């Protein structure tokens, strides 16, 4: 086989044959990782009849876009949920990055007299938490999280891990001499923070912002705990609702109330459900190749060391 002999095996490389075997095995796994999401998409463009006859098929025996047609016609809940998710993600990420970076910066400074105390305060919740029941009671009875955007934003607004990641990042990327110099020039601590520290540590802050935004986008647990009105239901929680209650999608369409029953009866339930899943996932899938790099970087940014 002259083709294989053309290039000699380099000393540190695996043989061509091993390479082919690895390509195939890893390829199968990579395919398995992609397949399900394509499968959901194929279901969403099947015709309802072919699903009734043959079940979910990767290549449907009949295609149809009626699922998307129906959703765009009556799925006002989808828009509302999108709006909630986007609001929560944007507001939550801004609030969270603000609180986290200020806290992290203060405890990154050795000349903060109470540094140790505040490190400790942030560390304890990583080791011990009160558990769901007391938290739920405080959040609903005292803080008013029930059916409020607060219930979706506040629980994810601070994460001790990110405080420590950013603290390490500030320490390693911002030279102490620079801060000293700015102080001598008469800059106040807040001024130093946003004029010098933030611009220098931008990659680290952006990574934490990304991780936070991702957590907000995918959150459904807090909605499960605190939200039970459709107009405040974020998109992931809406996906949960429609699993056994497809009517959820038309709940907001009060104008339709008369025709709602007929519309629902004709709606291609299975394909419409999958179409909503696809519409809820598409932004992540498309944004994913762009932020994957930063995500990987963020994971290897640094430990939680004091």
């Amino acid at each position, binding site marked *: 086989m002259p083709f294989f002999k053309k290039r000699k095996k380099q000393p540190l490389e695996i043989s061509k044959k091993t390479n082919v075997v690895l390509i195939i095995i890893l390829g199968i796994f990579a395919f398995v990782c992609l397949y399900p999401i394509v499968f959901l998409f194929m279901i969403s463009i099947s015709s309802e009849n072919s699903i009734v006859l043959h*079940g979910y098929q990767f290549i449907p025996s009949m295609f149809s876009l009626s699922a998307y047609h129906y959703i765009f016609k009556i799925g006002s809940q989808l828009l509302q949920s999108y709006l909630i998710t986007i609001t929560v993600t944007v507001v939550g990420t801004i609030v969270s990055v603000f609180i986290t970076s200020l806290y992290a910066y203060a405890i990154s400074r050795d000349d903060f007299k109470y540094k140790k105390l505040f490190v400790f305060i942030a560390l304890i919740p990583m080791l011990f938490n009160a558990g769901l*029941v007391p*938290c739920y009671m405080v959040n609903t009875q*005292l803080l008013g999280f029930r059916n409020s955007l607060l219930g979706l934003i*506040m629980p994810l607004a601070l994460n001790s891990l990110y405080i420590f990641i950013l603290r390490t990042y500030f320490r390693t990327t911002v030279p102490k001499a620079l801060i000293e110099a700015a102080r001598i020039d008469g800059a106040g*601590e807040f001024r130093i923070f946003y004029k010098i520290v933030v611009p220098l540590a931008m990659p680290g802050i952006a990574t934490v912002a990304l991780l936070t935004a991702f957590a907000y986008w995918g959150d459904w647990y807090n909605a499960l705990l605190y939200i039970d009105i459709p107009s405040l239901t974020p998109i992931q929680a809406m*996906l949960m609702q429609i699993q056994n209650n497809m009517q959820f999608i038309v709940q907001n369409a009060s104008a339709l109330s008369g025709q709602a029953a007929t519309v629902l009866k004709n709606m291609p339930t299975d394909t419409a459900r999958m179409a909503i899943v696809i519409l809820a996932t598409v932004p992540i899938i498309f944004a994913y190749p762009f932020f*994957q790099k930063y995500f990987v970087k963020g994971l290897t940014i640094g430990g939680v060391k004091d």
Partner: protein
Amino acid sequence: MAGKNVKKSFRPSKNLLFFAMVLPGLIWFALLCYLPMFGLVLAFKRFHFYRGGFFESLIHSQWVGLQNFYFLFSSHAAYIITRNTLLYNLAFIVLGTICAIAIAIALSELLNKKLAKVYQTLMFLPYFLSIIVVGYVLLSFLSVDKGSINHALMFFGFQPVNWYSNPGYWPYILVITNLWKNIGYTSIFYLAGVLAINKQFYEAADLDGASKWQQIWHITLPHLKPLIIVLVLVGIGQIFRADFGTFYWLPLNSGALFPTTNVIDTYVFRGLMDSGNVGMTAATGLYQSIMGLVLIVTVNKMIKKFDSENAMF
């Protein structure tokens, strides 16, 4: 900005400014982490709702000592949820580590570096899908009447299987799904570890005629050992915490599957939402938190022993 003179004469102390910086975070910790800890007294009370709201009820509820814990541990549920939580997490840690290392090494050996990048990107994808979407993926395979697996079974002349009411299958389903979702993520850490190994070790081994397998066994794995130990120990420190979504949503909260899908976190959630036995549910949560605390402290001590650089505190 006010004039310089004003600022100078009115300059707050440095520590006060730093305190202002941690203040928002401090309030958050106080309200969402530390205040609920007082609520742990619930675990030692028989909670009843009285008129006048929650706090009135909390004060008036009767102290019962360790009775909630006594009831919890004398029930079969305590055993089931502890067993499930521990065994699932153990399976996730052991299999997840082995698969992630294998994939990391294989990816690093691929001759086509571009293809390796593409593969890595694809393998990382499931990690970004929310557990809700993963639940729909499972449903499209396992649905009794429309699932592609049952249709394949019928095509080959077998009886369709009622997946969502047969607990025996779920340990396999949940372990496979968890691996599928997380391997790409875990392998990132190991791939970074593999790529950081100095090439000279391999060159020397190659000159001595060591095979690729020998090189992996005697160079790659020993070099990964500190990383493996740290990641495994971190996993063990979290072993009493189950991922709620995996065990609640993937089985679609199906009651028939509880024997193999109920874990501490789902038990506490259902206790709070359905049963109304607040005292015992709080006791379960406290039991989980204390076990977790003991494990994390122990594990941190062990990490310090192996590799003091990676200790958490």
